């Protein structure tokens, strides 16, 4: 028994990522064509060379046909993957394992989501037939529970906490302003963030990630084959995924200041990658900043900050692009919005650029290990994904 991981056994050798945004003129199929074409070109291969596909989407299609039909794939295995907001990352994880197993030589993980077609505000998740007793709380409301709980536990006044949260959004927008693929490409003054209209609890509209369409793709092969496709592959050091027992809504001892699922997946990933001090060893991270308090709590759950200290690290600029441990250098969900199936692969796309030295104005100096993180659900009841990649 054990989670052994596949450290350095598979490599990403090509990636593609569409611009994210309001793609009124493009369908989910169009976005899949765009990101896959970019990924094929990036790896220097034709579709024929790719043996199998993992497609992540939560609501933009069912079955492998969602991919094979628009791309006209010639009788290839396509697995449809869904795992809430970690859907894109989950497609990558399973694609990597298929390669590591020896079942296939070259595979693609690809994710897509068309959110803007629905016309709704925020995310909409369809439920199976129910008894009508499920709480109908929106995502910002669910995540807003983190803020007062964190403030109470660590004795921070509300004004300071608001400043911390605004600082997180400010940082991510500043990074996103330097990213041509991000739809929200403007720096936002910290005062404008702090005074944005209230959505839920302490959270204003500027504490929330946006809604957008997008697609991203990665081509994966065994590590020993990587240099056939590129001279600068990135290697998978760890892939961890956890679905929690959803204890938070049931047990009185859950206090809404941590995601136990994230702690478990991070610890597993660090073990797989041989990382003992994530605060020192992880050069950069793309994390699931669906709402500003989520990013705050993640810094502690991922071990980047000591318990109760992340708010100070945020204010001191530790996670800024030019800080010692940049977080969300591409602008995060905050600047990209969150097309569910695509987000995890969009995060990996930034790791790909950064580790290859192709991140332009956002380039971090000499990154060695990058971490991506997704979570889906809410505090006390979620799934969590952590990957670590490096050169």
């Amino acid at each position: 028994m054990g989670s052994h991981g596949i450290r350095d056994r598979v490599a990403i050798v090509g990636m593609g990522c569409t611009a994210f945004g309001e793609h009124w003129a493009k369908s989910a199929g169009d976005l899949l064509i765009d990101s896959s074409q970019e990924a094929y070109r990036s790896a220097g291969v034709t579709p024929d060379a790719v043996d199998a596909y993992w497609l992540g989407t939560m609501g933009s299609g069912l079955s492998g046909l969602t991919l094979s039909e628009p791309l006209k794939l010639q009788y290839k295995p396509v697995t449809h993957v869904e795992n809430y907001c970690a859907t894109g990352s989950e497609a990558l994880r399973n694609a990597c394992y298929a390669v590591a197993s020896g079942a296939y030589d070259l595979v693609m993980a690809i994710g897509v989501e068309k959110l803007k077609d629905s016309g709704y505000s925020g995310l909409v998740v369809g439920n199976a037939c129910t008894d009508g007793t499920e709480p109908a709380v929106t995502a910002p409301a669910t995540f807003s529970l983190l803020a007062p709980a964190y403030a109470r536990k660590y004795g921070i006044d509300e004004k300071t906490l608001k400043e911390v949260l605004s600082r997180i959004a400010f940082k991510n927008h500043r990074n996103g302003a330097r990213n041509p693929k991000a739809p929200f490409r403007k720096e936002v003054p910290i005062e404008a963030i702090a005074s944005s209209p209230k959505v839920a609890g302490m959270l204003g509209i500027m504490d929330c990630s946006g809604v957008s369409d997008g697609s991203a793709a990665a081509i994966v092969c065994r590590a020993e084959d990587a240099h056939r496709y590129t001279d600068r592959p990135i290697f998978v050091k760890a892939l961890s995924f956890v679905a929690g027992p959803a204890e938070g809504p049931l047990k009185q001892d859950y206090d809404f200041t941590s995601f136990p699922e994230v702690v478990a997946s991070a610890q597993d990933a660090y073990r797989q990658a041989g990382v003992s001090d994530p605060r020192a060893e992880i050069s950069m991270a793309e994390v699931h900043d669906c709402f500003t308090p989520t990013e705050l709590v993640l810094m502690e759950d991922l071990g980047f900050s000591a318990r109760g200290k992340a708010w100070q690290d945020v204010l001191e600029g530790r996670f800024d692009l030019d800080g010692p441990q940049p977080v969300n250098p591409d602008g995060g969900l905050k600047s990209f919005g969150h097309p569910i199936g695509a987000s995890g692969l969009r995060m990996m796309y930034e790791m790909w650029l950064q580790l290859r030295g192709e991140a332009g104005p956002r380039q971090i100096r000499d990154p060695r290990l990058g971490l991506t993180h997704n979570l889906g659900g809410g505090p006390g009841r979620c799934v969590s994904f952590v990957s670590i990649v490096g050169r």
Partner: protein
Amino acid sequence: MAGIVRYGAYVPYTRIARSAIAGGAGERAVASFDEDAVSMAVEACREALREGAAPDQVLFATTSPPYAEKLAAAIIHAACALPHEAGSADLGASSRSGLSALGLGADLATAGRRVLVCASDVVIGAPEGPRERSGGDAAAAFVLGPDSEAGARVIGRAAATSEYLDVWRTPEMPFARQWEDRFGLEVLAPLLEDVAHRALRGAGLQPADLALLVAEATSERAAAGLAATLGIKPECVADRLASSVGRAGAAHAGLLLARALDSASPGDRILVVSGADGAEAVVFEVTDRIQAARPSHRVDAWISSKRADLAWTTWLKWRGILPFEPPRRPDPERPAAPPMQRAERWKYAFTGSRCTACGAAQLPPQRVCVACGAVDRMEPEPFADASGRIATFTVDRLAYSLQPPVVAAVVDFERGGRFQCELTDVDPAKVAIGDELEMTFRRLFTAQGVHNYFWKARPRR
């Protein structure tokens, strides 16, 4: 002989000032956007059922049934976790049905049955009309049982049936109509007098023997005039709550009776008269068991626990009278019959589970214990009357509601167990961690003609 063993009442939290409608003095009670005749009846029934043996029959009276076809009494039965063997029936079509149900309940109790009689109404009227102004929303419930347990025994009854056109509404009509006031008065006054006299005679009493006259009718003037006709002194006439609640349709006679019982003394005789499509009268004699029959919430306590700043347009929105811009969110899905049926004890009676291996309470009911992992070692644990406190909460301005913003709280129960749910009858600006909450049965929404009932929490009233 039989009588009232226990009783309860319910007045919703919201009032609207008549000055905010189309003029007039005082205020009327308004069922919240998430209440209807059934949910309010459940609140009153819970009060009446807090102690004592379970009834074997449910009778429910209303003129505002949530379904034209589907038994409301069965929903009340489920929400009160009554035994499967109990019978159930709905009455209605007339505001007199409330007191009729009480009379029928007394008959059944005399025959040895134990009967839960409840009446509840959401009274609406055409905007700016008299019914909108004078109506009220409320509920009352009574458990009728043997004389030996009665806090108020039935000692006289009379009924009269008369066909005339006074208040009417076809299924297609959104609002009831009423014939002119003078006609209603002329027809009803003698009917009220007749049943009052006959009921008193049956009890062997004179009007002067009454401690209290409770009279109500579709004609307010007929109800008001009965005391003078009988020669009853004004101090022996029950307030009809026109300025605080309004006339609550089929629930009104029961509500006024409950209020009378709240302050009655052993030996008091109370005559209750209700007039609509004829008239009905019941005479009660209060016994020395009255204290044990009383609910934890008196009618006056319900009346004084309120929020009175409702806007007229908001009310019209709640009742579906005023169309409005829908939110940019999907319409709620109708709940499905099999999952609802599987979850009956949870959904309707708010019954969770407790692990017999480790003692951890949990809701919704689980099969695998969240604390110790034991499988299928649970026993049912009722939470409807459990009190809890706010562990944390949020004000959700994005979620769709007929009364935004939604306040959602994580509730920790004193007996263990945690539940996250919506708060209702709450001022978002006044919610705080640690606030005490109680559970309340509500209609969450209606989708494709299916009313979705479930529980919310409210600040303790």
